């Protein structure tokens, strides 16, 4: 249990990115009615943003 929790916190930025930023971005795009390039769906765009931003935050140890 302890190992699982420690791993979750260690990968906190990535977990937050896929758990929250991805669906949040998708829902913002949907509600704003934004058209995405290359046939991207809002969820794929959210996952891409989450992966990039979360990855950077995971590496740098900071979101901003």
């Amino acid at each position, binding site marked *: 249990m302890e190992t699982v*929790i420690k791993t*979750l*916190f260690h990968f*906190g*930025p990535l*977990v*937050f990115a896929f*758990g*929250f930023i991805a*669906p*949040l971005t*998708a*829902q*913002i795009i949907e*509600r704003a009615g934004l058209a995405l390039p290359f046939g991207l769906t809002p969820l794929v765009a959210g996952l891409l943003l989450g992966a990039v931003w979360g990855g950077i*935050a*995971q590496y*740098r*140890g*900071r*979101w*901003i």
Partner: protein
Amino acid sequence: MSTADVKQLSDAELMRQEREIARRHIGKFPIVSVTWAFANLAVWLSLWPLVLTGTLSVWIAFPIACLNVMLCYLPSHEAQHDIIARPGDRLRWLNELVGHVSTIPLVLPYRVARLTHLEHHKHTNDPDLDPDYGTHASGPLAAIWNSIQSRQPGTESGPNAYAAALQRIGRPDVMLDAVFATLAFYVILFALAWSGFAIEAALLWWLPRHIGQTYIVYYLSWAPHHPGNLTGRYRNTRGFRAVLGNIGSMGMQYHIVHHLHPRIPLIRTPKAFHEMRAVLDARGCRIENL
């Protein structure tokens, strides 16, 4: 008695007068804080069904939720100092209930808040022992930026400073409260987000929590102790005039009285300050534009 006359008094007499004033304010039941705790939590909780059912616009609910988070800490702070009821008192359960439930929007467990806050009182402005020392900054904008930075994943201040303080006082077990509260917060946030309520979760909890934390760190920690380089009973906290006034700073203009006599209820600190003013001046306290 004039300030000049008070300055002639001995240490013992100054202390006697200070304690006499404090005694008049300690022990009064803080009905405002208790009502504040439950009303604030009830409003915040009610925002969820109102917004999720479409009864209330999330854009109206968002500033209310921000206010709820900003307001949620101080009732718990009263409980941390046993102001509502002391151990063994008939209403002790109420003290503990307020402590536990009022900071739910902030995701700050009571035992963590209490133990680290008492360490802050014991070691105010000590760079090694004050768990809130990381909030110190050169000015208002730096304080806000510092607060945001303290919540970044790789930071050494913020939650990590609290964990270090709990370790130091032999209560690392209490950190589990923070671990489980944080996990619960993110599980709820993720579940809402993946159920189609990400914007609502962001504007009712995630973003208000960040805004509330920034406000709380600024007015409840940075401003009353700035510049934070002095220690000692009469020098580690200051009286100051807040841009947002006494209500806008949630009574923190008179935080010096709280550090001298932590069991005076928040609502009574302005009155106690004015009664104690001459003694504070005689003690060389930092009272700026107040």
